[in-house]
């Protein structure tokens, strides 16, 4: 991950465009501590307590999302982590790309992927049916009527 | 923007109203003064903030009277007395009077001086500065920790950036072009490319600093090779008071790196091997804060009489251990770090080994109080100015007081700026001869093509060793004769040098050879002047003539270059004498 040696700055600094760097920087620092709480708890709940990873399956997820508390929790985590991660990736891309075009292309791709995944994740959380009709009842959570 | 008019082959031509050679304190102060009113260019062989003004530590004198009663008259008196009465008193009065404004100018430009509790510029003691004509030390030195010179240099450069001054950095001026006795401009060599540049200008200010590299043990930078002084000399301008070269008492032993007098100003004490505070014997009243010539001589004497410290008994000790570490940290951080870095000595708890080091040239290009260069005792060369360490006004006489040089560069740098711009407003450009650069090109090509056997560094080392041995704190007819012979031998060998780097880009090999040529010239002038002054005064101590001789030598020396070898000096140099300007203070014995 060490940077490439560039003996020559690619171009003289182009001065002064309006920019959102300050806000990006602040966002990283605000989302960071929130993510510590969200992600670390997520890890403990999913991987440490009870049977840990062994216990994870459809029923486990359904059990969690039956509770709006975990719905909101995971939703916050989804949004924050994706925006945080994408913004972090953007920083890295800016560091190592020199051509404006490449930078723009990669940046756009990153945000597009980020947007899609946020959309997808949000939809999943809100449209999730813990007890889908016709599913194998063995796989469902204990509270499902089908069981 | 560069004023580029024509460019043939590798020569580029530029035109200015005021051209300043040297971007140290003196050069940049002049540039700031002239910059607002004229087209000003500054040429420097170093990036401006690398100039040696930045090494100055202790402070800058001015009778602000911020912390105790003081007056410019007292300051004048101290300067005159410190200079062993060889000071031109009209110039010293200007120096002292304009000092207050000079400090305020710097403060207003942004210099971060240390402050008193009331928020005024703080002041501290320094050698030779006294209240009421020698009654007690006075706090006259304005300072910014122990990096006053650094702050001056940075502040001046910052203001040049603000004014948008044109700099030509890493350009070596190698010649002054005179046309019919009048200055037309200079020829410079661009380090990066090896190209030649010819600068025409109505007025030209030399501010190229000192030439401490004629000595081996020196506080001066590798680049202080006296180029400007030597160039002026080669173009027929005499050099004044070259025998007066100051040795600073407290150089780190063996290295010459300076520990500012501020160390003693803050209470540091010099001791010999047995721990005795020996300055009590030499200057009972102000002891360790006596002027530099006296302290350096006392130190050299202690060592000579076997009271030196260390395994070879060849240095004395600067004792700071009784000072609070907090005081040391606040007021002397840099110099104590030098002791730690370079000698591995912890100044909080151990005394620091010190010995005199070559430090400052009192002599140089003769000027009057308007910074105009003189071609003899009183003829002005119109349009040519000099300021700073390369010039001799003379405000330092036979021995400069600490903190008076940073003052000198500001007061006379400013004056050089003012008068040069005033001159440029009405003067006509002296026509630049068509072949202006020929001499420089010939000199460079000669050096570049030299395929001899002698190594530059070897010659330089032999020169410096000889100067340290023969023309340092103590001098006699014999040692000086030896030095002259050595220099003449080296001159012969200089014709037979070897240059390894044949390239054009950044050819520092070539430039070191050219700089050695300047050093040889200046060493010779120094030694000739030393020999002709058969008395002891200030920094010049002739063991064979130990007393001051006001009847014969209350005069400045003026050394001129001649075409032929002169009988009297045994060199191609002629010596003349110039009266000292005395206004208020008649010479008296110097006691402290």
């Amino acid at each position, binding site marked *: 991950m*060490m940077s490439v040696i560039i003996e020559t700055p690619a171009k003289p600094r182009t001065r002064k*465009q309006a920019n959102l760097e300050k806000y990006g920087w602040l966002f990283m620092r605000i989302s960071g501590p929130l993510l510590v709480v969200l992600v670390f708890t997520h890890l403990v709940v999913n991987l440490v307590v009870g049977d840990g990873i062994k216990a994870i399956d459809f029923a486990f997820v359904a059990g969690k999302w039956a509770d709006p508390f975990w719905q909101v929790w995971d939703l916050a985590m989804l949004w924050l982590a994706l925006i945080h991660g994408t913004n972090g990736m953007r920083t890295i891309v800016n560091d190592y790309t020199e051509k404006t075009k490449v930078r723009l292309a990669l940046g756009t791709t990153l945000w597009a992927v980020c947007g899609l995944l946020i959309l997808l994740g949000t939809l999943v959380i809100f449209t999730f049916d813990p007890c889908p009709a016709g599913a194998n009842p063995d796989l469902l959570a204990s509270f499902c009527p089908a069981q | 923007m560069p004023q580029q008019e024509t460019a043939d082959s590798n020569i580029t031509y530029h035109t200015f109203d005021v051209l300043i050679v040297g971007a140290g304190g003196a050069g940049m102060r002049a540039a700031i003064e002239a910059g607002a009113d004229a087209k000003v260019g500054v040429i420097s062989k*170093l990036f401006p903030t690398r100039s040696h003004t930045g*090494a100055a530590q202790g402070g800058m004198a001015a009778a602000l009277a911020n912390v105790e009663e003081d007056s410019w008259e007292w300051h004048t008196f101290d300067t005159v007395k410190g200079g062993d009465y060889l000071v031109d008193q009209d110039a010293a009065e200007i120096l002292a009077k304009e000092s207050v404004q000079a400090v305020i100018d710097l403060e207003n430009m942004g210099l971060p001086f240390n*402050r008193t509790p009331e928020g005024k510029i703080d002041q501290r003691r320094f050698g030779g500065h006294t209240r009421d004509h020698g009654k007690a030390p006075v706090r006259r030195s304005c300072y910014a920790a122990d990096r006053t010179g650094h702050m001056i240099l940075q502040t001046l450069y910052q203001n040049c950036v603000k004014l948008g001054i044109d700099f030509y950095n890493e350009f070596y001026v190698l010649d002054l072009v005179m046309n019919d006795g009048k200055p037309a401009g200079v020829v410079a060599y661009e380090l990066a490319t090896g190209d030649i540049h010819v600068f025409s200008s109505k007025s030209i200010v030399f501010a190229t600093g000192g030439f401490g590299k004629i000595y081996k043990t020196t506080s001066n*930078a590798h680049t202080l090779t006296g180029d400007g002084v030597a160039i002026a000399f080669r173009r027929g301008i005499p050099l004044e008071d070259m025998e007066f070269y100051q040795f600073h008492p407290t150089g780190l032993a063996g290295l010459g790196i300076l520990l500012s007098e501020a160390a003693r100003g803050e209470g540091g004490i010099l001791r010999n091997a047995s721990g005795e505070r020996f300055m009590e014997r030499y200057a009972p009243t102000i002891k360790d804060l006596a002027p530099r010539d006296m302290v350096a001589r006392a130190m050299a004497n202690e060592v000579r009489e076997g009271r030196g410290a260390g395994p070879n008994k060849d240095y004395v000790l600067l004792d700071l251990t009784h000072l609070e570490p907090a005081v040391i940290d606040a007021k002397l951080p840099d110099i104590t770090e030098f002791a730690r870095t370079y000698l591995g000595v912890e100044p909080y708890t151990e005394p620091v080994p010190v010995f005199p080091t070559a430090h400052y040239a009192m002599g140089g290009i003769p000027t009057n109080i308007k910074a105009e260069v003189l071609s003899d005792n009183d003829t002005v060369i119109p349009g040519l100015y000099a300021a700073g360490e390369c010039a001799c006004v003379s405000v330092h006489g036979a021995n400069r007081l600490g903190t008076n040089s940073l003052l000198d560069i500001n007061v006379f740098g400013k004056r050089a700026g003012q008068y040069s711009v005033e001159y440029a407003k009405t003067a006509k450009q002296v026509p630049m001869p068509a072949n202006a650069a020929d001499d420089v090109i010939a000199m460079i090509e000669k050096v570049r093509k030299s395929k001899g056997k002698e190594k530059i560094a070897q010659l330089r080392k032999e020169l410096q060793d000889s100067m340290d041995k023969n023309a340092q704190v103590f001098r006699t007819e014999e040692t000086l004769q030896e030095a002259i012979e050595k220099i003449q031998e080296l001159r012969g060998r200089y014709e037979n040098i070897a240059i390894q780097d044949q390239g054009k880009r950044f050819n*520092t090999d070539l430039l070191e050879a050219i700089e050695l040529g300047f050093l040889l010239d200046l060493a010779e002038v120094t030694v000739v002047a030393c020999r002709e002054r058969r008395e002891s005064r200030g920094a010049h101590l002739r063991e064979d003539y130990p007393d001051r001789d006001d009847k014969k030598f209350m005069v400045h020396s003026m050394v001129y270059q001649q075409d032929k070898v002169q009988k009297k000096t045994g060199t191609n140099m002629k010596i003349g004498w110039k009266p000292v300007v005395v206004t208020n203070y008649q010479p008296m014995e110097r006691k402290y």
Partner: protein
Amino acid sequence: MANAAAPVIDSFTVTLIIRRFNPEVDSEPKWVDYDVEMYGTDRVLDALHKIKWEQDGSLTFRRSCAHGVCGSDAMRINGRNRLACKTLIKDLDISQPIYVEPIKGLPVEKDLIVDMNPFYQAYKDINPFLIASDKPTKERLQSPEDRARYDDTTKCILCAACTTSCPVFWTDGQYFGPAAIVNAHRFIFDSRDEGAELRIDILNDKEGVWRCRTTFNCTEACPRGIEVTKAIAEVKQAILRGRA
């Protein structure tokens, strides 16, 4: 104690491996070995001089003051940025060769000399001069506390050791770099200065303080002991809060 100035350590031989490049003849940089005899108080600058003066006059580097105050000779010695004149050879591991190469991220001109102009430009871009509208006839007053506020950053000698040690600067050379920020700090926190807003605006640039990733290389490289990363953090806070 007091015998420190005497040569405690006798002479020893070290190998310097110097990255050399002369665009007039070389197509790319090469490493060249030199053996030199040195003494205990010698510095890397002395070794370079010895090579230049006795072995190869074409070795090229900048230097002036030789005691760490002019900022001419920042270079990479054994992988770290330092001033050659402030690095004692005996403090390095002399059983190994000493690697010397130019500072990184600025165009190499010849051997250890780099083109400093991009660096100076960043410095000039932050308006490195006092901006004040008053026209005092005497000195301005400033309390010792106000003076102490920016003391650390007045020490900068523009050696570029910090900026060229910064991994972010290496990437594309666009980042203003720590030295420029240090010099902005020197004025932003000077109670006499009125240009803080302007400077803050400049450093709020895309290539300004926000690119700093707090890697501390600058702080560790600074030969003047300036707490560079701290100064940068203070400028970031000044930008966030709208003033010092």
